[in-house]
């Protein structure tokens, strides 16, 4: 056996060869200059092919690229840097993949900011990398309030929506409209757990009751929700509240209709819905369902203008995640422009407390206390097919929930920003 050590030398060559294909990326890192590495790098980490790929996915990358182009066009010669790159990674909705990808993006691809990151468990992993590397992270498509609560940190900002906003919008209105008894089904990971808690709180505060709840495995690879759905009628709820998202929501609603739960007196309420979900199901499957939306493309002319440009690029209408990615990328670049550097602390300083009004952020403000980005949100209703005038024209905005009412007040936040 020892003799097997003899040919070691020849294999040393193999190892060196292996080492060589990794590229010379070693050694301790060094900081520097006004614009680090002479370029601004925006990283997008999301689900490129899985259950959350339609609602953000490749089109979110397109949205970020649009922001970069528009920024370059706007600032032509006085731009802080002409060299702006967009890099992409697929995290497959797995937190450990997101963790590694985020680390690599910050270290190797020299990303100055990471955007998007659906899947709350993955988002939490990216947030911890952002803190460790002292680089920015704008979360758009993950919903957990932990990002601006217990797990908040100096370099993480939360855009678009969160579970509090959804529960506060949908849970409260639906309960107050008379559906007192809820049966909640949720995916068993950070997002679903957080949604279940937020909804329960909102329902109980507005005089309702949760008569039953059931979680499903995440990701639900079989796409089967029969065990969750068939148990619901026994508890006699007025409404079945589903906290699933993306492709899972689509499967669940299809099965809800197959099992004819509506005929058994169980209504449907959806915790989180993207316009892409309505598109996959067809509006009739969801007609009349009320939900909270962070942004709707056909809300007014300003939104429509942007949505038209988006359609030119991608061939489809944007979800609020797509618009949020554009807005986040643009506002980050503007902050870099204003600060004159992409050095994280300077950019954070510029962003904190900033009031912003763009097509996505109406009455927007970046709260310095917990880095929640607040803005007006909307209570929407799915139109019946007969009212739909064009593709993706699926929503009727019932009311606008003003920015200061839509999100968890700072006084209730558990975020301790100083301690990271």
């Amino acid at each position, binding site marked *: 056996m020892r*003799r097997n050590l003899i040919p070691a030398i020849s294999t040393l060559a193999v190892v060196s060869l292996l*080492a060589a294909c990794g590229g010379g990326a070693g050694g301790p890192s060094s900081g520097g200059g006004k614009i680090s590495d002479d370029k601004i790098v925006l990283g997008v980490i999301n689900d490129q092919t899985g259950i959350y790929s339609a609602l953000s996915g490749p089109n979110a990358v397109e949205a970020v690229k649009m922001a970069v182009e528009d920024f370059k066009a706007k600032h032509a010669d006085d731009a802080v840097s002409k060299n702006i790159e967009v890099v992409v990674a697929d995290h497959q909705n*797995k*937190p450990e993949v997101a963790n*590694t990808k985020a*680390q*690599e993006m910050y270290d190797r691809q020299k990303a100055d900011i990471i955007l998007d990151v659906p899947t709350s468990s993955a988002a*939490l992993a990216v947030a911890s990398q952002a803190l460790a590397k002292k680089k920015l992270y704008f979360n758009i498509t993950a919903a957990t309030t932990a990002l601006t609560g217990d797990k908040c940190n100096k370099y993480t900002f939360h855009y678009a929506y969160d579970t509090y906003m959804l529960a506060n919008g949908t849970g409260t209105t639906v309960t107050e409209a008379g559906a007192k008894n809820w049966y909640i089904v949720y995916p068993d990971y950070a997002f679903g757990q957080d949604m279940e808690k937020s909804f329960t709180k909102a329902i109980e505060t507005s005089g309702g009751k949760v008569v039953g709840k059931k979680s499903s495995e995440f990701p639900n690879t079989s796409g089967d929700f029969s065990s969750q759905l068939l148990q619901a009628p026994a508890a006699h709820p007025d409404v079945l509240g589903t906290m699933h998202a993306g492709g899972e929501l689509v499967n669940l609603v299809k099965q809800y209709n197959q099992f004819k739960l509506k005929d058994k007196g169980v209504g449907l309420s959806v915790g989180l819905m993207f316009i892409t979900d309505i598109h996959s199901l067809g509006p009739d499957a969801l007609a009349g369902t009320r939900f909270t939306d962070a942004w709707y493309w056909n809300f007014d002319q300003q939104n429509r203008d942007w949505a038209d440009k988006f359609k030119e690029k991608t061939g489809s209408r944007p979800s609020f995640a797509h618009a949020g990615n554009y807005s986040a990328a643009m506002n980050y670049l503007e902050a870099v422009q204003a600060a004159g550097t992409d050095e994280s602390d300077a950019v954070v300083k510029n962003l904190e407390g900033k009031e912003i009004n763009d097509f996505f952020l109406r009455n927007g403000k970046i709260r310095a206390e917990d880095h929640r980005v607040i803005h007006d949100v909307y209570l929407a209703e799915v139109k019946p097919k007969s009212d739909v005038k064009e593709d993706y024209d699926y929503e009727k905005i019932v009311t606008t929930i003003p920015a200061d009412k839509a999100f968890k007040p700072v006084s209730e936040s558990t975020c301790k920003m100083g301690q990271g």
Partner: protein
Amino acid sequence: MTALVFRKLGAMSRLWRLVAVLGGLLIALALPWLIYPPVAMDIVAWALFAVALDLLLGFTGLLSFGHAAFWGTAAYAAGTIAIKTGAPFPVAVAGAALVAMVLAVPIALLAVRRTGIYFAMVTLAFAQMVYYLANQWSSLTGGENGLQGIPKNLFGLDLSDPFYFYYAGLPIALIGLLIAWRVVHSPFGRVLVAIRENPARSRSLGFPVDRYKVMIFVISAGLSGLAGGLYAISHGFASLQEVYWTTSGKVVIMTVLGGIGTLWGSVIGAALIVQVEDYVATSGIHLGPLNITGPGLITGLIFVGVVLLFRRGVWGTIAHLVRSRRRGVPDVEPHLSGTPSVAEREPAVAPKS
């Protein structure tokens, strides 16, 4: 005359061995300068894991398809210890290895009653049990969210830079490799090889075969645990992926690729797989709709190639070539298991060295 030649060969091989060990150490020390440090740490952790598996697969002839249970359990254990107690990370890793060994005892006692494919199935079944347990016991493991934010404590040293952490973690892996080397080159290791070659004859010679198997299984699990704990600390993260069956599969591929029963071949196999996966994932090679399976596809192709062309694995083939040229040992195809037989490895005429 022949004796003289052999003595000369013995001295030469000792020199070679020294050069090899020093060369290996040099590469290990230089690794984070050559490649991205977290990947270097991954290589080291996986290398130890693959070596641990080789103790079972190569030296005892038992194919465990459930080693993710030990690697993953240790990952969770190391994370929990580090988070809850704030202990220095080597303590957490050692504790994790201990937990893996304790877990291995009942599994080994049941599994060694079977051999071959049945042994593989039993270990796989236990590993899947551990997986579902980890998924359900989310108050401890974080379930789908994983165990996040595992600290890298070491007496107040700042190890957040993966470059420095590599040098803090490397000694632990080297200790693990040293243990594996000692096991193989001890009388205990000789008995294991005897058991692999002919269990009935070993039993008739008076060796308690099952007890030997249990012992090596537990040692292997302990080393896997050492590797898994190190991996979790390095990533600051323990997830369900660590206990999933694909992890068991990956380490088997590494060991086979490097060469079963060669110990150091596993190190090469681990380096190869980790590097290829990293290269494919970062190079932006798009395989159209197969994009997501890109790394798996390419490692799979390499695996098929190696199994078809070099049945002894990378290390095994090189070792064989060198040996056959020096001694004129005829080129015999290895046994079905892919391992060279004892006779081939240790020719009867060879002097004791």
